[in-house]
């Protein structure tokens, strides 16, 4: 086989090999995105859970819910959550009926990507009422 022909074939082979490896790497990009967003979701979930634990560490969140003090709950959550995190809080009574006007939220309309929902069961030590809290979190634009 003439030398130039051999050379051309070698180049083609090398290009083909590179294309195969490059295609494999390209095909992994969606997976990488998924893993990255999973990591974000994990971080948001941890934040939400820790905030609820902190908010009710002394039993005061339960009391605020029983007394329907939504503005204080809003202020407290806004203080505890980091900047850049939007939230939507829905509280259900023992019969899983939503309380108040439906939900308490902050900047929920300006969120991007996935949101996570943290479910938290709560007992008010003053009235002994039970509540289920659903806290949705997402990163803001």
């Amino acid at each position, binding site marked *: *086989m003439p030398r130039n022909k*051999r050379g051309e074939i*070698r180049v083609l082979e090398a290009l083909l090999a590179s294309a195969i490896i490059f295609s*494999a790497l390209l095909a992994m990009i969606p997976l990488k995105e998924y893993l990255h967003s999973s990591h974000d979701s*994990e971080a948001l979930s941890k934040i939400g*859970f820790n905030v609820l634990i902190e908010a*009710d560490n002394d*039993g005061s969140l339960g009391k605020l819910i029983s007394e329907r003090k939504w503005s204080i709950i809003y202020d407290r959550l806004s203080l505890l959550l980091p900047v850049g995190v939007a939230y939507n809080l829905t509280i259900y009574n023992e019969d899983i009926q939503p309380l108040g006007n439906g939900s308490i939220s902050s900047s929920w309309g300006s969120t991007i990507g996935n949101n996570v929902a943290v479910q938290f*069961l709560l007992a008010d030590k003053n009235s002994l009422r*039970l509540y289920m809290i659903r806290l949705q979190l997402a990163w803001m634009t």
Partner: protein
Amino acid sequence: MNMIGVSRNRRHGQVLILSALGIAGIIIATCVYTYQLTQYSGLDISSSPNAFVENLKLESRNLITGVLSNKSNGGGDDLISTLQRWSSFIYKNHNSGTCRMTYHLNDENPYSSGILIDWARNSTGVSGAQVLLHIRMTSEGWSLNTSYVVDVTTRIVVDGIAVSLNDTAKIISVNADLYNEDNHALASSLEILYRSGYGWVHADSADGYSLNDFGNGTYKASFTVFNAGTIDVSVLSRDERGIFTMANSTCNQV
């Protein structure tokens, strides 16, 4: 010779392509393995077993504290029905597998159905609740069993001293220490009474009454009484959790 050269070229090309395929396969396999690992690691923390157990521990404690507070203030709520309601609520609203919480109330003396209220000891008053909780969670591929004790105790220790000023007047000093479990705790309310044969009288109506709050769960009151024999003092307190307790003490005559 040319045939050998052609054969070598072909083998060289095949080896290169096969090597590239092999590398691509390794890359894809590694990524798929990583993806599968994340599927089993419970990334959704909202349903993470450990997080849910922490949730239950905190709220179980809040609930038991609430029942004790209610009971110590004369209310009628009891631990059994409250914990039964809580356990049922948990079972119905756990959204990842099943979760059952069972409880065992301490019934050993001096507790009764998980509650201890003893204000008749000399110089010490105790209001307490003790419950052993067991949580069992199961889901696809895993299960979790954990037990822990919830102990909520408010204790007050009272000490009184009577110092004679003259034939008729005595200065009474009352020391009170409040504890939550074994730690000093602050009182949200404190009331001191004394008795010298005529029934209980509020100490803040006595001459020279003062109450010092040391800010660490220790309180000291002093006041003057006249024409009194043996003085008994009683301290009624409510801690910041709302749990009531009281203790009586006979003042030591100095």
